[in-house]
C-alpha cells in the first residue's frame, strides 16, 4: 500500500487520539498504582488526609501480612534479646513481638495448588474433547457444545446451593480436591471452546500424512497435533489459571479453612480498628502481580480467550 492511502489517519488525528488514549490509560492505572503504593506505606501514612503521594517506603505492610503479632509490656520488650532483622525491628517499634506466621502463606499456596490442579485437569480433558469435536463427526455436536458453554454461564451462587449439599454428603467441603474438581468443571467449557478453535486451524493433512506413514490415530494425535497446538494449549491454560486464581463466589461459600484460597482471605486481613490497609494492599499486590505478568504474555490471544474463541485476531 502507498504511504498516502486515503484511509491512513492524518498526523494530527494520530496525535489527538494517542493523547486521549494515553490519558484514559493513566487514569485507569491510578487505582492499581495506589494498591502497590499503599503496600509500602505505614498505617498512619495510608490513612492520612490528604492522601500521600510522596512517602517514606517501608515493608511494614508485608511484615504484617506474613506475621501475627502480640503486644508485650515495655519491661518484657526490654528483656528481649536485640531484634534480628528488619521485620523484628519494625514490629517492636510498636511495642509488639512477632508471635508466628500468618495464614496468608497457606492461603496463597491453596490458590496455587487449586489453580494449577484445576488448570491441568481442564486443559488435559479439554484438549481431548476439543480434538474429538474438531476432527470426528459426533452426533448432536452443536447441542453438546452449546451445553458445554452454557454450563459456564450459570450464576455461581445458584450452582453453589446443590454443590454445597452434594459436597457435604461426599465429604468434599473445604477440600482441595473438591475445589479442583469444581473449578475444572467451570473451566472445561472455556478450554474445549478455545482449543477447538486452535485445533480447527491445524491442517488435517498433517495427521493424514502421519496415518499413512503407519501412525495410529492416537500417535498422530500426540506426535503431530499436540506440538502444533502448543501455543493454543499454553494460552488456554493461562486463561483457566487466571479464572481459578480470581474466583471468589464458590471459594467463599464452599471453603472456610483448609482449602480457602486467597481472594476470600485477603479482605479479612484485620488490623487495629478495621482493615489493615497496608497489609491488605501488600497481599493484593502479591496476588495480582502474577496475573499482570500473564496478561502481558497473553496479549496476542486475549481477544480469543474472552470471546470463547469466536474473535480470532
Amino acid at each position, binding site marked *: 500500500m502507498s504511504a498516502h492511502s486515503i484511509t491512513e489517519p492524518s498526523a494530527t488525528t494520530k496525535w489527538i487520539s494517542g493523547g486521549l488514549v494515553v490519558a484514559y490509560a493513566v487514569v485507569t492505572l491510578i487505582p*492499581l498504582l495506589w494498591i502497590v503504593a499503599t503496600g509500602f506505606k505505614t498505617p498512619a501514612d495510608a490513612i492520612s488526609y*490528604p492522601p500521600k503521594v510522596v512517602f517514606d517506603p517501608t515493608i511494614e505492610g508485608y511484615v504484617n501480612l506474613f506475621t501475627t503479632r502480640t503486644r508485650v509490656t515495655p519491661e518484657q520488650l526490654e528483656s528481649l534479646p536485640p531484634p534480628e532483622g528488619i521485620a523484628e525491628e519494625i514490629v517492636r517499634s510498636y511495642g509488639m513481638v512477632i508471635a508466628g506466621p500468618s495464614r496468608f502463606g497457606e492461603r496463597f499456596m491453596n490458590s496455587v495448588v487449586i489453580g494449577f490442579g484445576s488448570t491441568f485437569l481442564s486443559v488435559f480433558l479439554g484438549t481431548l474433547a476439543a480434538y474429538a469435536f474438531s476432527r470426528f463427526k459426533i452426533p448432536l455436536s452443536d447441542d453438546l457444545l452449546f451445553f458445554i458453554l452454557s454450563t459456564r454461564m*450459570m450464576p455461581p*451462587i445458584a450452582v453453589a446451593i446443590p454443590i454445597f449439599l452434594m459436597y457435604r454428603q461426599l465429604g468434599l467441603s473445604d477440600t482441595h480436591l473438591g475445589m479442583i474438581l469444581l473449578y475444572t468443571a467451570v473451566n472445561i467449557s472455556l478450554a474445549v471452546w478455545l482449543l477447538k478453535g486452535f485445533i480447527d486451524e491445524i491442517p488435517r493433512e498433517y495427521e493424514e500424512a502421519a496415518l499413512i506413514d503407519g501412525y495410529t490415530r492416537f500417535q498422530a494425535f500426540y506426535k503431530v497435533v499436540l506440538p502444533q497446538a502448543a501455543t493454543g494449549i499454553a494460552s488456554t491454560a493461562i486463561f483457566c489459571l487466571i479464572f481459578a486464581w480470581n474466583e471468589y463466589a464458590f471459594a467463599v461459600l464452599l471453603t472456610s479453612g483448609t482449602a480457602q484460597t486467597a481472594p476470600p482471605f485477603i*479482605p479479612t486481613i484485620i488490623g487495629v480498628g478495621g482493615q489493615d490497609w497496608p497489609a491488605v494492599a501488600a497481599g493484593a499486590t502479591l496476588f495480582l502481580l502474577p496475573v499482570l505478568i500473564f*496478561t502481558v504474555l497473553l496479549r496476542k490471544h486475549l*481477544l480469543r480467550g474472552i470471546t470463547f474463541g469466536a474473535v480470532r485476531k
Partner: protein
Amino acid sequence: MTNSVITAAAEKTPPSVARRVRGLSDRAIAWIFVAPTIFLLLAINIFPLIWTVRLSFTDYRANRLNREVEWVGLRNYERILTDDGIWMNMQATAHFLVWTIVFQVLIGFALAYLINKKFKGNALWTTIIVLPMMLSPAVVGNFWTFLYQPQIGLINYMVEFFTGIPASSFSMLGSVELAPWSIVIVDTWMWTPFVMLICLAGLRSIPDYIYEAAEIDRASKWRQFWTITVPMVLPFLMLAVLFRGIENFKMFDLVVQLTGGGPGSVTELASINLKREAFEKWRTGYSSAYAVILFVTIFGLASIYVKALNKVKAR
C-alpha cells in the same frame, strides 16, 4: 475422500501392520476423548441442576437435617414472583446492568475508535488499558472500598480537589443515592476494556477498500461512520453487550465486596439476595426456586449469545 486414501493405503499393508495403523477406531477414540468431559459436567453441573429443580418444589432447609421435608408444589415460585422485595432487587440489578452497559459501550467504543487510528505505541497502551479486567474482582473490589472512604479515600479527595465539595461530606458507598452509582463506576473501570477489545476487533475486520470506495463516492466522514463503521461493528458490539449483560445479571463478587448489598438493600443485586436466602437464612427450597428462575433467564440469554457468537464467527 480422505478415508478412501487411508483405506487404500491400509489394503496394501499386511494384516499385522494394518491393525496397528487403525488402532482404535475413530469412533471409539471420539467417545473416549469426549466422555470424561461430559461425565464431569454431568456430575458437577447437570446432576446438581436437576437436584435444584427438585428442591425448588419443597420446603427443605439445609441447616436442619432432621426436619421432615414437605412437597410444596409451585408455592416457592409463587412467593418469589409476587414478592415486592425481590422485585426491588431485580430493579437494582437492572439499574446496575443498564448503566454499566451504557457506559462501557460508549467509552469502550470510543477508545477502540481512537486506538484504531494506529498512532505510535497503540499496542502498548492497549495492553495497559486491559489490565484491570484480568484482576480478581473480589480483591480489587475490596481495595476500592478504601479508595471510596469518606475521610481518607482517594476518590473523595479528587472530588474535593476538582469540585470543592468537602471530601467528608459524602460517602460513595454509604449513601442511598450514591451507592448504586459507585458500583457502576467500579464495574465500568474494570470491564470497559472488554468492550473496547471486541469493538477493536470489529473495527479491524472492516477492509480498507470499503472506505476507499466511499471516499471515491465523496461520502463525508460523518456519513462513512454511520453507514460503514457502525453497521460493521454492530455484530461485535452485540456480542460484547450480551456477554456483559449475562455477567452483570449474575454479578456477585465485586459488588458484595464493595457494598455487601447495602446501604439498606439498594445495591442488593439478585445474586447477593440469593446468597442471603440460601446461605444465611438457609431457606434452601425457596432459594432453589429463586436459582431456577435465574438459571432459566441466563440459559435464554446464553442461547441468544451463542447465536450472536456464530454470526461473528461467520465474518
